[in-house]
């Protein structure tokens, strides 16, 4: 083998040198396939980074995401509206500890939120809530009297004259919950098991003073669709992990860009939209081009083989065997491929820098993307040689010289073999034409 390589390497070099244009084209195709592969990977990477950035915006330390609805002001009925609005149509979010604890949503309301503050006549609670006490909305009645339990409609906030029914939060034990009973370490006022259908899930109320001195958030309302699986883990989690300072600092830091705080699924939708809008089409175009050039490699190698089949026939006449043909072809594509890969890597890096500068996007090309692209291109090259090698192995010199149709798979024998073989066996002709001068 080593002797063969040593003897045939100069031949391969001459073969490469003999077809500079063709090999330059081959190297260019290899380079382009790598460029488009890298381009595809870069866009894919950008897509996922963008969408995960959106996702990240929904998260705060401790797997808890907080949200303050925009526009909530002291003594503002919109706080309640926002509460309901969030629950029903969920335009902005609250919470997504959901991934680990079930479907949890959290609402943090301002200190003087209507939910906790004095707003409107309390229909069912029978009294006005004291500041810091946990009250829950249970009903709504508009100015026209329409409403009732479960009737807190999306239009509630649009009717300033409407009233909301609030009840004090009552824990599972039946005791009324107040901020004074919140454990020192936790910002938890208690759990509330609502009696009304529309808020048919547990609620966790967190007192304002448990947060930072800024004192904005006063309560956390949480509800989930699976209280059985939610409550106990949540309680344990709060006991062990919920340290307000850890939550509140980042929370406050993120308050200004609140409109960007998205629910995880909203973020995913946004991410998908973003992907659909920009990155996927671009990435997919790159991918299709990569496939095109990878297939082009096969076509090019096959055409190259057919182009050189006379030369190959002469070499076979001189004793070149198919392993040696394979060796020469592999040496050839190895050298050309290396040149193409080097050019492709350089072009990828250069184009990436240009694209980064032009788009302002954080486009990154990691080494393993380039390496895997090179590996795929090398694999494509290797496979593209395989078919010509197979043809060269099966074809006779006469086939390759073009003196007769190229039937490497015994077509001629199968088609004519019956009559001809019988004729040969019998030692006689069976018709047909004998060429004459």
């Amino acid at each position, binding site marked *: 083998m080593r002797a063969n390589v040593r003897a*045939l390497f100069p031949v391969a070099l001459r073969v490469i040198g*003999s077809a500079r244009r063709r090999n330059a084209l081959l190297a260019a195709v290899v380079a382009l396939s790598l460029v488009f592969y890298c381009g595809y990977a870069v866009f894919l990477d950008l897509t996922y980074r963008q969408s995960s950035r959106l996702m990240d915006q929904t998260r705060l330390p401790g797997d808890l995401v907080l949200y303050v609805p925009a526009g909530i002001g002291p003594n503002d009925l919109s706080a309640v509206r926002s509460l309901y609005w969030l629950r029903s149509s969920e335009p902005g979010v609250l919470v997504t500890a959901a991934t680990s604890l079930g479907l949890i949503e959290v609402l943090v309301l301002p200190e003087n939120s209507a939910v906790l503050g004095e707003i409107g006549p309390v229909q069912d609670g029978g009294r006005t809530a004291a500041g810091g006490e946990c009250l829950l909305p249970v009903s709504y009645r508009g100015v026209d009297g329409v409403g009732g339990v479960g009737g807190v409609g999306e239009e509630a906030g649009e009717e300033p004259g409407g009233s909301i029914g609030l009840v004090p939060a009552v824990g599972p034990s039946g005791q009324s919950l107040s901020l004074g009973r919140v454990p020192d370490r936790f910002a938890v006022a208690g759990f509330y098991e609502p009696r009304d259908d529309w808020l048919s899930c547990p609620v966790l109320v967190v007192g304002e003073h448990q947060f930072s001195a800024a004192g904005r958030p006063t309560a956390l309302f949480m509800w989930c669709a699976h209280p059985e699986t939610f409550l106990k883990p949540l309680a344990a989690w709060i006991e062990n992990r919920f340290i307000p300072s850890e939550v509140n600092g980042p929370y406050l830091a993120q308050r200004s860009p609140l409109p960007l705080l998205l629910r995880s699924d909203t973020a995913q939708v946004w991410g998908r939209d973003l992907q659909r809008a920009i990155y996927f089409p671009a990435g997919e175009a790159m991918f299709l081009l990569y496939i095109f050039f990878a297939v082009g490699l096969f076509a090019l190698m096959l055409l190259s083989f057919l182009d050189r089949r006379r030369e190959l026939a002469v070499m076979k006449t001189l004793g070149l065997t198919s392993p040696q043909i394979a060796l020469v072809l592999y040496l050839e594509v190895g050298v050309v491929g290396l040149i193409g890969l080097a050019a492709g890597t350089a072009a990828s890096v250069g184009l990436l820098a240009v694209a980064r500068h032009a788009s302002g996007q954080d486009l990154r090309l990691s080494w393993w993307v380039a390496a895997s692209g090179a590996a795929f291109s090398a694999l494509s090259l290797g496979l593209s040689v395989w078919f010509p090698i197979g043809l060269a*192995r*099966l074809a006779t010199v006469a086939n390759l010289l073009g003196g007769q149709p190229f039937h490497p798979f015994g077509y001629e024998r199968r088609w004519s073999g019956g009559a001809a*073989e019988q004729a040969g066996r019998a030692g006689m002709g069976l018709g047909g034409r004998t060429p004459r001068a």
Partner: protein
Amino acid sequence: MTISPSLRAVNLTKTYHVNELVWAIRNLYLDIFAGDFVVLAGPSGSGKSTLLHLLAGLDRPIYGDVVLEGQRYSRLDEDGLARLRRSKMGFVYQFFNLISYLSAEDNVALPLQFAGRPLPAARRRAAELLSLVGMDQRRRHLPSQLSGGEQQRVAIARAMANEPDFLLADEPTGNLDSHRAHDIVELFARLNRDMGKTVVVVSHSDLFHRYANRVLGMLDGRLDTEQRRVGGELRPVEHRR
């Protein structure tokens, strides 16, 4: 004592399909002995070149077999045939078929490299062979820089590279003027006479008859006539089918 043939065609049959079935070779038997100088003659389309290609293992018969020193071609795959050609057979084409981008020397060195010889050693041997065919002054030239006769000399040197016992040539003078054709004929005769090579030549012309010890006339894919040299003259013998 019976001398066994070195190269033997047994019931060789070859057809082509060009819209219809065409018989190129029909049930042909042929024995070629070591040291023979055989000329295959006959009109165009009589099957001379096809027979030569079958004898060289460049093509496959549809039926029958070729046996070279006990090795049956039908039992060899393409690689086996290539190895056989490399070691035992040199083939010369009418149109030289030199590799255009290699010098005369590198063309001759090619089969040696295929046999595993490194380039420097192969070039040394190629230089010797080119000297043998009178081309030592032109060994660095590309085929395009050589005349037809010179190219054919290089092709013959290339065919001789691995010291084969058999030299097969398909109309080696068909593309040359008469003066250069004569040189080539004499070169073949010398290789047969002085180096003991068995030569099988397909030729339209009578140039080779002077040196051949057998002239086989082909017609319609069969051996039609045969002349053998007896006492310095070619004499017809009964053709064996």
